[in-house]
Structure formats: structure tokens, C-alpha cells
């Protein structure tokens, strides 16, 4: 603890003559001749770019539900956001039956809610498992129907809910698998260790596309005759198997960061392997690995867009198809893609900021 005088000095405001916008500009923008030149150059570039960009994006753009002619009139000068209004439902829900689209809309809310709830540390206990089970069940009921709702087959699912499902269920099921693989990689048993190392390294060494191809073309050969698995489920399994390898490495980092004394303490207490892991080592390891786990979740969220390549109607594919298949609106594909980019960006940016905050919080926790 610093003495009161030092603390007062540290919190005192700088002399008034050093404050103010001019002083700020002097230190932050014009500190050296080089800095000044750089600032002028950048300002000039911005002065040229910002009016141009905002003119195209906002001022001269066509907003709201408007006919194609309105867009054609400003083509080249302004963006055509009318394409978003025109194609909104197809982008969001793909080929899901039109009259039932309130269901995937609700599913988006449920799944996003799951993410938000999981972000609060107050919920990091047994309740969270309960909330997730309920959320997953609710999503399946809303999307698939039954029990009072018209059944909708998985082939007709599409759009943003599919992206959210692939990412959220991907992480939910890959997580336990990843923990097992991480434990296996650090196991004393040579065969178990070898199996885990080979699995993790092979999966991490190949692109996700090849795993998706495998799921899409080879799964049918693996299964007994007559047994067919939905394309969406196959992609989901591939994503789970893929992400588990990355999560395993994130968890392994956490396991390695737990001090050896903790392992030895657990052993000294006479706890058997699973108890010592479950009660002493894993809780500490997982806490350390939460930021890298959130980061793998962000890359998974982006990577789900690769299912486009095996023709699954996720959000990216729905957006692509919505403009590709309509010759009249096709020329406004950039606006459509920008819209989807904004949606992806909002989810990823929120999670990325959250992960950075967690990292800072945990770093603080270490320096008591």
C-alpha cells in the first residue's frame, strides 16, 4: 500500500496549463516533425475517403423498401440498401417455410440469449447447464416442430439460426470431448496419450473443408446400408470433431498452467484420478483457459460459414443465394454481403471484446 501522500500525488490532476485539447494534440498528433507529417497525410487521406464512403454508404444510398428502379437511378453514387429489405427474410431464414418464420426468428433470440446469459459470471454454476439444456431443447422444438407445431425437416432450415446452431451446439458438444482429449494428452498411459496426440495433430493439420468434405461424401460410406444422416447433422458432427481438437489445446494450456503442487496435493489427499481432476485440477485449468476457449468460439463462429462449400443453408449461403438467384437484384451483391458482414461482425466483435475483458479480469485476479 502506498502512503497517503503518494496516492494523493498520483490522483492529482496535472497543472491546468498542460491540459486541454491543444496540449493533447501536441503530444498525440504533432510530437515530432515526422509525427506531424504523418498526421497531416492521414488527415488528408481521411478527408478524401470519409465523404466519399459516407456518401455512398448513407447520404446517396437508397433506404427502405423501394423498387429496383430507385436503386438503378443512383447506381454508382449510392448504395442500394433496398436489397436488404427485399431479401431480408430469405437472408435470415433461407428456405424455411414462409408462414412459420416466426419460429426461427424466436430461435435466433433464444440462441443469442444463451450466449448473453453465459457471459455473466453470476451464472457460472450448475444453473448454466440447466439453462443450456432448456435452450437447446427449446431451439429444437421451435426449429423442428412437433408437439403442436408443424414439423419442418432439417433440410428446410436455413439462414442465421443454422449458423448459430452450428456454432453454439458445436462448442457445447466439442467442449467435453476437448477436455477428455486434453486430459488424455497429458495422461500417464502411453496408448491413451498416443491416440490423443495423433487425433489432435491430424485434425489441426488439415483444413476444416477437408473434414466437411469427409462428412459430406464419406459418412454415407461409413454407415450401414439404408441408414441416412441429414446433411446438417453430418456437418454438425464434422464441426464438433474439428473444434474438439482446438479446444483440447486450449484446455491443455490451462492444465499446464496449474502449479504442480496442486496435482501433488490432490494425490497426497489420496483422491483417485477422476476425483482429483474433477475437483481440484480442472476447475483451475478451465478458469485459465476460458479466454482461449472464447477465442476458439469466435473462430468457430466465423468458420461455420465454410459449410457453404458443401451446400448447407447457413447465413452466408442464404445471403449469397438471395442475390445470386435473382438476376434483377444481382448487381447489388456488395450491399447484401455488407449486411451479412455487419451481422457477423456484431457477434464476433462483442465476443472478442468480452474475451479481452475476461483476460484483463483474470490477470487482475492473479496479482492480488
Amino acid at each position, binding site marked *: 500500500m502506498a502512503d497517503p501522500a503518494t496516492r494523493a500525488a498520483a490522483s492529482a490532476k496535472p497543472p491546468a496549463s498542460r491540459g486541454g485539447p491543444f496540449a493533447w494534440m501536441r503530444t*498525440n498528433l504533432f510530437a515530432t516533425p515526422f509525427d506531424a507529417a*504523418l*498526421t497531416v497525410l492521414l488527415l488528408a487521406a481521411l478527408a478524401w475517403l470519409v465523404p466519399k464512403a459516407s456518401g455512398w454508404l448513407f447520404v446517396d444510398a437508397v433506404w427502405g423498401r423501394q423498387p429496383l428502379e430507385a436503386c438503378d437511378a443512383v447506381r454508382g453514387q449510392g448504395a442500394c440498401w433496398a436489397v436488404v429489405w427485399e431479401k431480408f427474410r430469405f437472408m435470415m431464414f433461407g428456405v424455411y417455410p414462409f408462414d412459420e418464420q416466426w419460429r426461427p426468428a424466436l430461435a435466433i433470440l433464444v440462441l443469442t440469449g444463451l450466449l448473453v446469459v453465459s457471459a455473466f459470471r453470476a451464472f457460472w454454476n450448475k444453473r448454466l447447464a440447466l439453462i443450456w439444456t432448456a435452450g437447446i431443447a427449446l431451439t429444437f422444438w421451435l426449429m423442428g416442430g412437433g408437439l403442436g407445431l408443424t414439423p419442418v425437416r432439417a433440410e428446410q432450415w436455413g439462414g442465421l439460426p443454422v449458423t448459430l446452431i452450428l456454432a453454439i451446439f458445436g462448442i457445447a458438444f466439442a467442449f467435453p470431448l476437448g477436455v477428455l482429449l486434453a486430459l488424455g494428452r497429458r495422461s500417464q498411459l502411453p*496408448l491413451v496419450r498416443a491416440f490423443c496426440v495423433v487425433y489432435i495433430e491430424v485434425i*489441426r493439420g488439415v483444413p476444416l473443408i477437408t473434414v466437411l468434405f469427409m462428412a459430406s461424401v*464419406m459418412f*454415407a*460410406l461409413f454407415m450401414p446400408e439404408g441408414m441416412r444422416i441429414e446433411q446438417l447433422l453430418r456437418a454438425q458432427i464434422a464441426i464438433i470433431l474439428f473444434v474438439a481438437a482446438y479446444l483440447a489445446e486450449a484446455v491443455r494450456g490451462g492444465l499446464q498452467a496449474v502449479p504442480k503442487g496442486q496435482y501433488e496435493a490432490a494425490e497426497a489427499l489420496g483422491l483417485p484420478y477422476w476425483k482429483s481432476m474433477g475437483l481440484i485440477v480442472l476447475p483451475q485449468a478451465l478458469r485459465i483457459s476460458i479466454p482461449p476457449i472464447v477465442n476458439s468460439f469466435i473462430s468457430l463462429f466465423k468458420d461455420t460459414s465454410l459449410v457453404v*462449400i458443401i451446400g448447407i443453408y447457413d447465413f452466408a449461403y442464404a445471403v449469397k443465394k438471395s442475390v445470386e438467384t435473382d438476376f434483377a437484384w444481382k448487381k447489388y451483391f456488395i450491399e447484401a454481403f455488407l449486411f451479412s458482414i455487419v451481422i457477423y*461482425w456484431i457477434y464476433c466483435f462483442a465476443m472478442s471484446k468480452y474475451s479481452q475483458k475476461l483476460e484483463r479480469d483474470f490477470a487482475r485476479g492473479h496479482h492480488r
Partner: protein
Amino acid sequence: MLSSERARGIFYQFLLLAAVFGLGWYLVGNTLHNLSTRQIQVGFEFLGREAGFEIAESQIAYAPSDSYFRAFLVGLFNTLHVALLGIVLATVLGTLVGIARLSSNWLMSRLASAYVETMRNIPLLLQLFVWYGLFTELMPPVRQAIELGGGIFVTQRGLYYPWPEPHAAWSAAGWALLAGAALAFAWRGHARRVQERTGRQLPVGLVAAALLAGLPLAAWLALGAPTQLVYPELRGFNFRGGKVLSPEFLALLIGLSTYTAAFVAEIVRAGILAVDKGQTEAAMSLGLTRGQDLRLVTLPQALRVIIPPMTSQYLNLTKNSSLAVAIGYPDLVAVANTTMNQTGQAIEAIAILMAVYLTISLLISLFMNWYNNRVRLVER
């Protein structure tokens, strides 16, 4: 107690082995049964058959009458082509952005962080779609090509640029460049040994530059100094002559390198921040200039932190080049995909894909580990 623990260990391993074998047996059994009912031949004989499909661009000679094996080779070289160039571009751009983020200039650092936060939070696939769309839709058709000067044309079919007419002097210059690099490397080793023995410093940079520039120039001059360039010319419906970078290649290269650069920037920033401030202050008090400090004190220490995560980014970029299949650049995955559709040899094609990517990953890891060992801190 020990014996029972060991016995349990052996039992668990036996259980895992049985499970893996059981699952493998079941899957292989199903697969063999399915293959025989669908009358699909297993094996790699198809690689020798005629491929019969066009490949839009290629680093080596290829015609549809060539074998599937050659088609795979074309795909592999295309993958390596875009990945290597992408790695170089991403490293340069990422390092610049990473340093810019640390700039004391507020505007510069804000712009750099905006770049990083935008690029890394958008799926690469969408970025590729947008780049590809920009090239094919917004660039002018061939007849209204934009001339950038010097015989370079931009059209929706790609970027056309002049290229030297084939001549023995050019290939000789290429070989001379290789020889110059080898000699420069040898000279550096010699200079180091001389310095260790006598303390005398021999000029390294100057000699290397002379070798690298002088030898090719000499070879080129000796064989007649040809200056004839082939300019792209509009003939009929397309440009003839010169070389072209296709929109698929450009979109993939730009997309991959700008996306990866955002991650590289963060790694570089973290690496530089990890070097203690006292080190720079020590360098200053020794009278080193800012440049010398960066080159001799800060960078060597930052590299130790930077190299391992950088390796994963290089691997990611190489693996991400497989997204080429989505915009029609004929990389390895695209060739494998066509092959699968034509021959039905899915198992073999995917096996080749996985084996090739695993080999590439392994080679990059090996090289980067070797480099990492060279720059790591040697402690007593």
C-alpha cells in the same frame, strides 16, 4: 496399491484399444460393403487415367489429356503459389499494422486498431466473396480496360502485365541470382568466423547486395542484354501476350493476406510490448541510434515471442487457402473436388488432400522450429 493402479492403467488402455479397433472394424466393414454394392473400385489407379477437365491457371504445363496425378500436381503448385505469396504479403502488412498500432501518433494507432478489429471479426469466406465480386463485377469489361501505364491493364478478367520475351539471358540471370544468394550466405559465414578469430569486421551487407544484384546483371549483360518485352494486346475478345493475374487469384491472395495480417499485427504488437522498456533505454544510453536499437536489441528479443504464434498463422493461411474452391481458383481442394465428382473416388481424393496438408503443416512447423531454435535465448 501400485500394482492395482498399473493393472487399472493397462485395463483402460486395453479398453480404448478395443473401442478404437471395434469402431474401425465396424466402419471399414460398412465401407467395404457399401463400396462393393455400389461397385466402386478402391485404389489409386485412377491417378494414372486421363483427367479430361480444364484447369484455368497452372504453374506447370497441363492439358486435359494429362493424368489425374498431374492435375493434382497443378492444384498443389497453385496452392503453394498463393500460400507462399500470401505469407510474404501478410507478414509485411501485418508487421506494418502491428507497429502502427504502437505508434505514439493517436490517429495512426486508432486506424490500425480499426483495421485489426474489422478484419478479424468477419469470416474470411465473406471477405473472399466481396473481393471476388469487386474484381469481376466492378472492373471494366475487356474492351474498356483501364490502362495503368507501362502496358498494365485492369479488366474484369484480371490484371494483364508485360513480361520479358523468353531469352537465354533471363534464365541465366535467374540462376545467377541463386548462385549470388549462395555466395552471399557463404561470405556471411566467412565474415563471422573472421570476426570471431580476429575481431575484424568485414562488410557483409554491401558484399551481399553486390553479389545479389551484380551477378544476375552480369549474366544478363554477358548474354546480350535483351530488353524485348511482350506487351498484352487486345486481340479479338481478349488480351494476348504478356502475363495475367486472374481475378480468382487476386481475390484469394488479397483476401488471405489482409485477413491474416490482422492476426500477424496482434502478434507483432504483443512481441514488441513483451520486450522490457529498460532494454531500449539501455540501448539509448549506449549511444545506439533508434534504428540500431530496433535491429540489434528490440527485434531479436521480440522475435522469440513472435515466432511460435506466427508459425500457427502461416499454417492457418496455408490451410485457409483451401477456401479457393469457393471462388473458383483451382487449388488442390478444387482439383480434388472435381476429381471426386468425376470418378467417385472420394476416399482416395480426401486421403490425398489430408496427406498433402499434413505434410505441408509438418514442413512449415519444422522450418519455423529450426528458425525458432536459432533465435531463442541461449542461457548458461
